[in-house]
């Protein structure tokens, strides 16, 4: 006869506010099989856990049901406590009285009634639980970092410095991400190239880091510690070993009019190009969409001038297979373009630009060598207007969130403009200034007080062009919404930070969830910000939400230490929630008839054929066998099996049947 201990938690008041915990404990106490039933204010606290441990020892409990919060929160905590008291952790189940009951229903009879039902379900289930032991799985001590921006670089360096191998893949021809496009960085105005490029070189030269640029993740299989990643190395039409990066080809290439992505379309680049001078690797790539050879089949100027004959026009994409134990995603974000805004001219006016484009104008290696010049006619703007919240905090446009970094980079842009254009007048239209970081508020005050930037509180209704001037019509809400009309030479929109193109496809390849805005979803917003719901996959930087550089770097180091923690064990223990084919004595051996329908149903190819041979080697029966290392415990095979011969430990037919029966029959 099983002896089950039931521990009903008040969770301070979170449960007891609407559920009569004492009544639950008392009612469940009378069920047969329940040897001990008590309610306590904080089960997850040390005294709470000691309550369980002492009850197990004194009462010799064979099963424990903790009725408190969601098992996704504290199942590991209570299972560890049971293990320490000598009870197999898988004999401990949790009833979710908080998220699924007390928090979502009002105080009353029905709520306590539901709480009792929920506990009864788990009490009945525990009677059919079996002791299970963790599965040991080897760990491949190599990490895969997807995305070579500052977050990816930081994560790769941190992991590599713990002595483990790292594979860093980057979609663009060079690593560096958006940070490499910036002129100076807030709040200290130190030049981004000076602080970033040494890190980029460190990545290129680090013995533990293998860098694949112009490469994307093709597919991913496996699970924590045992991922198999296929990486598509897009063809650079270049033999990287021969190429010395002399740059002769990029100067001789006849196609010179392609808008440079690195310069956000302001500068031009050639068909065979290196995105920016400090690119890592500093070797060119051929843009097959615009290269004349790939369009008309002639030209080949680059091949002719190349001193080391490194050009390979017919080079194919290459698929690289990599076994990795953990993955850090740091694919970053992008910004909305002006064509997203009907009221600012549908992107029709060349002098209405984005923050990133202003960065390129202000950058010494930019198309205008650091001088602020209008894209339309190259003149230095005498009057410039910056618009905060262009698209952000705008539910009507489908982007209700704040993009966090714009208030700071607007102040920086205005400051740089005042430094570079003496006598220039700059305006900033804002709703609220959000400068919450260290030295951030002081930085914005400096822009207002020392550099004389005019901050106008209000939104801009329309921008239209007249006689070469951009008429910006807004209002000043601090002057009783007095209309404000500025004849500006240039307008910079601080457009909303949004997820990358293709973020959704990447999430689906990795089986991680994402939020309605296609930013990747963290496991827990407060307590697990760098983890995802999929074990072994971690997040860093702005791919999870708009984020500035200091936070991205801190988050990257966080993700790196998670990976290092994973790699510190030789073997990974995995939950024994896996499928098992039933075995019986000879001559039946198993109720499985060998139809192998389950083999095709298994997404992880974890089911193999097993053959029973008699003494002289003839196969007398073949049946299914589950490889515990590969099985992830999804249970698809269980529902597939005609003869019900395959079952999942922890969710067996018996257990699920009793749960349903217990749920609908009161005792």
């Amino acid at each position, binding site marked *: 006869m099983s002896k089950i201990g039931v521990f009903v938690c008040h969770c301070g008041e979170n449960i007891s506010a609407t559920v009569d915990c004492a009544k639950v404990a008392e009612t469940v106490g009378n069920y047969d099989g329940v040897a001990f039933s008590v309610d306590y204010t904080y089960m997850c606290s040390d005294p709470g856990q000691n309550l369980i441990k002492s009850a197990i020892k004194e009462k010799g409990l064979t099963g424990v049901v903790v009725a408190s919060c969601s098992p996704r929160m504290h199942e590991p905590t209570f299972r560890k406590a049971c293990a320490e008291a000598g009870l197999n952790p898988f004999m401990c189940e949790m009833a979710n009285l908080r*998220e699924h009951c007390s928090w979502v229903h009002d105080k009353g009879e029905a709520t306590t009634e539901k709480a009792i039902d929920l506990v009864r*379900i788990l009490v009945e289930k525990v009677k059919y639980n079996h002791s299970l032991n963790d599965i040991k799985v080897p760990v491949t001590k190599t990490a895969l970092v997807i995305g070579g921006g500052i977050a990816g670089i930081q994560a790769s360096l941190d992991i590599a410095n713990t002595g483990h191998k790292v594979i860093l893949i980057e979609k663009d021809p060079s690593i560096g991400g958006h940070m490499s496009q910036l002129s100076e960085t807030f709040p200290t105005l130190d030049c981004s190239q000076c602080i970033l490029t040494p890190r980029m070189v460190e990545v290129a030269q680090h013995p533990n880091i293998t860098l694949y640029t112009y490469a994307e993740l093709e597919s991913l299989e496996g699970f924590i510690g045992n991922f198999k990643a296929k990486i598509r190395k897009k063809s650079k039409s270049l033999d990287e070993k021969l190429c010395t990066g002399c740059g002769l080809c990029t100067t001789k290439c006849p196609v010179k009019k392609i808008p440079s992505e690195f310069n956000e379309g302001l500068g031009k680049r050639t068909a065979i190009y290196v995105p920016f001078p400090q690119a890592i690797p500093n070797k060119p790539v051929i843009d097959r969409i615009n290269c004349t050879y790939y369009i008309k089949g002639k030209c080949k100027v680059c091949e002719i001038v190349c001193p080391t004959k490194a050009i390979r026009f017919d080079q194919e994409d290459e698929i690289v297979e990599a076994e990795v134990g953990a993955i850090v995603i740091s694919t970053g974000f992008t910004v909305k373009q002006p064509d997203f805004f009907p009221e600012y001219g549908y992107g029709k006016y060349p002098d209405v630009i984005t923050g990133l484009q202003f960065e390129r104008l202000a950058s010494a290696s930019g198309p205008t060598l650091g001088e602020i010049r209008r894209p339309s006619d190259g003149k230095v703007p005498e009057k410039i207007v910056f618009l905060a919240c262009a698209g952000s905090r705008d539910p009507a446009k489908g982007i209700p969130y704040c993009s966090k970094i714009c208030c700071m980079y607007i102040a920086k842009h205005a400051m740089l403009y005042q430094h570079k254009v003496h006598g220039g007048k700059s305006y900033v239209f804002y709703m609220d200034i959000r400068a919450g970081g260290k030295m951030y508020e002081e930085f914005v005050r400096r822009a207002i007080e020392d550099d004389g930037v005019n901050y106008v509180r209000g939104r801009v209704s329309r921008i239209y062009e007249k006689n070469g001037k951009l008429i910006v019509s807004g209002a000043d809400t601090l002057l009783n919404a007095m209309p404000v009309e500025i004849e500006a030479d240039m307008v910079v929109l601080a457009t909303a930070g949004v997820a990358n193109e293709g973020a959704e496809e990447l999430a689906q390849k990795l089986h991680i*969830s994402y939020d309605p805005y296609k930013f990747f979803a963290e496991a827990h917003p407060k307590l697990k910000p760098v983890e995802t719901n999929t074990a072994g996959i971690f997040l860093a930087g702005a791919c999870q939400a708009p984020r500035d550089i200091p936070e991205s770097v801190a988050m990257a180091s966080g993700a790196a230490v998670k990976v290092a923690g994973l790699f510190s064990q030789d073997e990974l223990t995995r939950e024994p929630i896996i499928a098992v084919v039933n075995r019986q004595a000879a001559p039946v051996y198993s109720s499985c008839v060998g139809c192998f329908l389950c083999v095709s*149903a298994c997404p992880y190819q974890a089911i193999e054929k097993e053959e029973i041979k008699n003494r002289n080697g003839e196969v007398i029966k073949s049946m299914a066998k589950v490889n515990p290392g590969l099985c992830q415990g999804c249970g698809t095979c269980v529902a597939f099996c005609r003869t019900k011969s395959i079952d999942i430990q922890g*969710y067996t037919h018996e257990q699920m049947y009793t749960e349903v029966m217990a*749920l609908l029959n009161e005792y």
Partner: protein
Amino acid sequence: MAEFEPKIVAFVCNWCTYAGADLTGTSRIKYASNVRIVRFPCTGRIDYMLLLKAFDEGADGIIVSGCHPNDCHYTSGNFHARRRWIMFRSLCDFTGIDTERIKFSWVSAAEGAKWADIVNATVASVRELGPYSEYKKVAKYPEREVSHG
């Protein structure tokens, strides 16, 4: 008798809908308390015969919910569940089991509000349909004392 309170059993997958229901909790969104959740690792694991057993035992309505297509933690569990559901639904229609009482849906871990809506909507529609006593006639079960909440 007070207004009929239907008994609803919810078969949900642990990675998405169970987490979604957790989010409904953390966001303190109130919804009808008629539903009891049974947690499965994946909708692929749900054996639809268990649904009939639930009707046997006096359930008035059933919710089956898991990850959106392409979001399944195990890649294809929810595709299998969908295919089986289409087959099972036509089988139920054929045998006279009322599929109006079974609500199949996708709720992701970020859709706390949607879970509350689905529960409220199912409870309302099943309350309208009334207690599922005809099932006993269909299944020709001897009348057994089954108490309703």
